[in-house]
């Protein structure tokens, strides 16, 4: 007979593993979890939240720069991409980071269509990760509310 806590913990474990296996997260996310403790119980959620705000801001910058038809400043776009690559790397957002690598190449070669495609993909990708992490944090909250401990998941 499976208690609610046990069920939630299993869900949490499975979901976490799938996020890594599907390439959404990499070991830098694991490193961030190591920095979370009773004194800083929401550290990961806080950093991740800052990251998503960063995504919104930088993608907005890129979109504006690419919108200057005939007068696109690829250096400006590239600089925003570089920043996004940096912060995605710092939080373990593996797919976003990967897209930034491609995006940077398009900027460097002044490939307008390529940049537009990359921008769309990066936008979709960060929103997808945001939704998934929200689900993950929600599972954590449910476990705690049901009186259980959040399991340590070894990838």
């Amino acid at each position: 007979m499976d208690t609610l806590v046990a069920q939630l913990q299993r869900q949490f474990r499975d979901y976490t593993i799938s996020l890594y296996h599907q390439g959404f997260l990499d070991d830098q996310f694991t490193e961030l979890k190591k920095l979370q403790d009773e004194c800083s119980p929401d550290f990961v959620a806080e950093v991740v939240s800052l990251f998503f705000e960063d995504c919104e801001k930088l993608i907005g910058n890129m979109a504006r720069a690419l919108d200057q038809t005939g007068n696109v400043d690829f250096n400006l776009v590239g600089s925003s991409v570089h920043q996004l690559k940096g912060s995605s790397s710092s939080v373990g957002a593996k797919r976003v980071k990967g897209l930034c690598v491609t995006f940077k190449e398009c900027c460097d070669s002044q490939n307008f269509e390529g940049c537009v495609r990359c921008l769309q993909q990066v936008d979709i990708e960060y929103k997808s990760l945001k939704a998934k992490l929200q689900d993950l944090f929600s599972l954590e909250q449910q476990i705690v509310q049901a009186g259980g401990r959040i399991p340590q998941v070894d990838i």
Partner: protein
Amino acid sequence: MAVGDLSSSSSSSSTELHVLAVDDSLVDRKVIERLLRISACKVTTVESGTRALQYLGLDGDDGSSDLKDLKVNLIVTDYSMPGLTGYELLKKIKESSAFREVPVVIMSSENIQPRIEQCMTEGAEDFLLKPVRLADVKRLKELIIRSVEAEEEHKAKHSCPNRILQNNTRGVSSLDDDDTPSSKRMKLESRVHV
């Protein structure tokens, strides 16, 4: 005295380092701050090289600081920043009379050999590839503490000028880790990941 006028302490665990962390990325500032705090360091974060110089009181024209009592044991800075780059900040710090003995560590997301060499030649203590991890910070902290303690010990026994002691302590701190620039590059190369 710039390196840190720590009161005499018997063990390394009671030596609290004050670290100045410089990074234009809010996400990275949050992460580095946590990495340092969890390693029992006092942390001040600033968002640019210019702010760092202001904080250190080095934004005047001479190399002396207005802030005689400011204790900073380590400066960690991102390389690529708008305005003053980490390299330029490093140069300004090394040119200053007040803070030239403070170890400066550069962080970068890019593993570019000429860049690393340039920073090490200019006097950087270490060059870390981002994303920076707990193991990196722990290693750094041990290095700095050992050199600070060795210097405290020397000061207690002799009254020698700082400059001579600093050379000695570099030798002490490299006992476990080979800190020659080429070994750091090799360590960095093994950590390259895309």
